[in-house]
C-alpha cells in the first residue's frame, strides 16, 4: 500500500507537534522517521495510525483520504517501544486479539496465531503471561500481534530501544528481513541513526516538527541538506568549523585561524561567497599522518578498530579517527591530515547546505 502525507500538521494550542510534513511512501517501502526526541516523528506516526487527528493536511492510503478513519478501520499493525502487551492475557490471547475482534472462528485463530508465533520463534510460549517473558520475547509477541491480521501498513515506534545492545543488533536484522519477505509497507520511528541507516530504504530526518530531509540512506549521509542532518547522522558526529573560502591561483582554499585547506573546485566554488561559511568534515575523513597540520591531542578514545582523537588546532576542536598503530597519546602534538574530497559547506544563517540545494 502507498502512503502519502500532504502538509500534515498537528498542534495542541501553541505547541507544535508536526509542522507541514509532506512525503510519499511507496508500496512495500521501509521508511525510517529519524530525529531527536520531541522532533515530531512519533506525532506523525500516531496521525498515520489514526490515534491523533491531524490539525491540517491530508493522509492518503492508496489515494484514499483516511484523515477521519478510526484506527480499527485502517488495517494497520503497530509495535511500541513499551511492547504494550495486554498483561492479563497470555501470549496466544495477545497475538490472536486482533482476530478475536474480527470474530474469526476459534480454529482459524489458533492456526494463524501458531503460524505467526512460529515465524517469530515464540511458538512454544503460547501459554505464558507477558510478565514471565524476557524483553526480547515480549517484543516478538508484540511483532506477532501486529502481523497476524496481515496489515497493509506496519508502524514501529522505537521498537528496539528497550532491548539490550546485542539483542537490538539481531532484532534489527530480523525485522528488516521480515519486512522484505512480507513486503509490507513500513514506517519505523527511531532516534538511533544507525538503525535508520541500516534498516530503511529511505530516511525522513525531522527536527522541531519539520521535515529536514527525505532521501535514501547514502544520500542522507553523503549529501546532507542541512547542518542538522549532517550532524545528526553519522557516528562519531561530523566536525563543524567556521571558515572562509577564497579562490587563489585556481585553487579554492578554506581558511580559519591556523588552518588552510585546499578543497575540491566543484565544492569550493559554491562556498566562495565572500564571508564565513560552516565547513563540515566527518571524523573518518580526518586522520593522523605525516604532512598534516599539527594540533594538540586533547583526548584519545580507543574504539578498537580506530582511535577517536579529539584534537585542538588553536581554538578549533576536531575529532579524527586515527589508526591505533600511531599510538596517539593525550597531551602530545600530532599531525592532522584532512581528506577534503567529501567536505560539506553550510550557510551560517540558514544552516542549509551550499552544495545540495
Amino acid at each position, binding site marked *: 500500500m502507498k502512503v502519502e502525507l500532504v502538509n500534515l500538521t498537528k498542534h495542541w494550542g501553541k505547541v507544535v507537534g508536526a509542522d507541514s510534513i509532506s512525503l510519499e511512501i511507496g508500496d512495500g517501502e521501509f521508511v525510517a522517521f529519524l530525529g531527536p526526541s520531541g522532533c515530531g516523528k512519533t506525532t506523525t506516526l*500516531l496521525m498515520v495510525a489514526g490515534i491523533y487527528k491531524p490539525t491540517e493536511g491530508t493522509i492518503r492510503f492508496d489515494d484514499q483520504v483516511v484523515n477521519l478513519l478510526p*484506527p480499527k478501520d485502517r488495517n494497520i499493525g503497530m509495535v511500541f517501544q*513499551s511492547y504494550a502487551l*495486554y498483561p*492479563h492475557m497470555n501470549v496466544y490471547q495477545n497475538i490472536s486479539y486482533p482476530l478475536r475482534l474480527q470474530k474469526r472462528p476459534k480454529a482459524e485463530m489458533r492456526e494463524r496465531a501458531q503460524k505467526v508465533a512460529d515465524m517469530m520463534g515464540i511458538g512454544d510460549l503460547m501459554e505464558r503471561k507477558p510478565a514471565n517473558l524476557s524483553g526480547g520475547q515480549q517484543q516478538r509477541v508484540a511483532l506477532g500481534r501486529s502481523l497476524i491480521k496481515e496489515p497493509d501498513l506496519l508502524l514501529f515506534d522505537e521498537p528496539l530501544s528497550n532491548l539490550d545492545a546485542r539483542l537490538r543488533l539481531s532484532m534489527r536484522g530480523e525485522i528488516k528481513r521480515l519486512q522484505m519477505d512480507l513486503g509490507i509497507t513500513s514506517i519505523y520511528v527511531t532516534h538511533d541513526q544507525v538503525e535508520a541507516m541500516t534498516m530503511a530504504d529511505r530516511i525522513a530526518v525531522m527536527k522541531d516538527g519539520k521535515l529536514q530531509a527525505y532521501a535514501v540512506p547514502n544520500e542522507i549521509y553523503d549529501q546532507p541538506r542541512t547542518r542538522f542532518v549532517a550532524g545528526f547522522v553519522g557516528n562519531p558526529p561530523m566536525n563543524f568549523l567556521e571558515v572562509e573560502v577564497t579562490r587563489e591561483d585556481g585553487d579554492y582554499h578554506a581558511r580559519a585561524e591556523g588552518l588552510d585547506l585546499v578543497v575540491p573546485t566543484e565544492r569550493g566554488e559554491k562556498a566562495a561567497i565572500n564571508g564565513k561559511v560552516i565547513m563540515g568534515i566527518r571524523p573518518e575523513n580526518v586522520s593522523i599522518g605525516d604532512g598534516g597540520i599539527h594540533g594538540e591531542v586533547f583526548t584519545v578514545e580507543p574504539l578498537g578498530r580506530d582511535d577517536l582523537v579529539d584534537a585542538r588546532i588553536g581554538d578549533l576542536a576536531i575529532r579524527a579517527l586515527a589508526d591505533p598503530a600511531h599510538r596517539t597519546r593525550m597531551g602530545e602534538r600530532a599531525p592532522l591530515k584532512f581528506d577534503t574530497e567529501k567536505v560539506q559547506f553550510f550557510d551560517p544563517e540558514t544552516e542549509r547546505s551550499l552544495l545540495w540545494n
Partner: protein
Amino acid sequence: MTLRQKLGVLAPYVLLVISVVPIFVGFLWLVINSFAVRTEGLLPVGGLTLENWSFLREPPFGRGYPSIWRVTFNTFLIAMFMTLFVVLVSSLAGYALSRLSFAGRKPFLSLTLILHAFPGVTLLIGIFFVLRALSLYNNLLGVGLVMIGFELPFGIWLMKGFFDNVSWDMERAALIDGASRLRVWWQIILPTIKPGIAALAIFAFISGWNAWLIPKTFTIGAGQQATLSVYLQNFQGDTVMVQWGAVTAVGLFQLIPVAIFFVFTQDLLLTIYAGGAKGGT
C-alpha cells in the same frame, strides 16, 4: 547481635503492640459483653448467657418492628446496590476524566474534589426536601441514591488515579488491533486495574453496610426500611434503660460480615494506599 541491635529490632513491635492494645481490648470487651449478663471491666459477672442474642429469634421491640433478618437484608441490599453503582459510574467517569479531553473536564475535576471534601451533614436538610419532592423519603431507594451520591466523588478520583497509571500505548495498541473505545475500556483497561476496582468495591460495600447518618435521617425510626446501624440505635432509647448486652450483640452481628470480608481482601485494600496499581507490564 548486640543488645542495642536487639532493641532496635524489637522497638517498632513494642510500639505497635502498645498502640493496638486499646483497640483490641475494645473488641474483646464487645465479644465478652455480648455473652455476659453484666461485665466489670473485661470480666463477665453473673455468668454467661445467650439472652443478648435473642434478637436473632424474635423482634426485641415487639410487634410492628421488623425482624433482624429483614433489617440485615435491607442493609445488604443498600450495600450491594451502592457497590454496583459506585463501581460502574466511577470506572466510566474515571476513564473519561483520565483519557478523554472534553469541555469542562478541569472544572468537573475540581468540583468533584470539592464535593469530596464537603461536609455531607450540611446538605442533609436540602436533600430532605429533594427526596420528599421525589417521593423517595423513607424509602430504601432514596437512601441508596443519596449514599451513592456521597461516595461517587471519592470513587471517581480513585478510579481516575488507577486509569492514569495505565499506559497509553496499551490502549493505542488495542485501538489499532481493531477495538472500539468502549471495548478497550472493558476488555483491556478494566482487567489491568482489577485491584483498583476490587478496592473501590470493598470500600463502597463497607461504607454502605456501616452507614448510619443518611439512613437514620431519611427513614423513620426502626420501620421496615431500617438498616442495621439505625436498628442498633433503638436499643439506646431515651425512655428505657440501655441494654448494653443486646447492643454489643447486634454490634457484633453487624461486624461479622465486614470482618470476614476484610480478612480476604486486605491485600487489595492496601493497593489504594500504595498509590494505585502498577500500570501496564
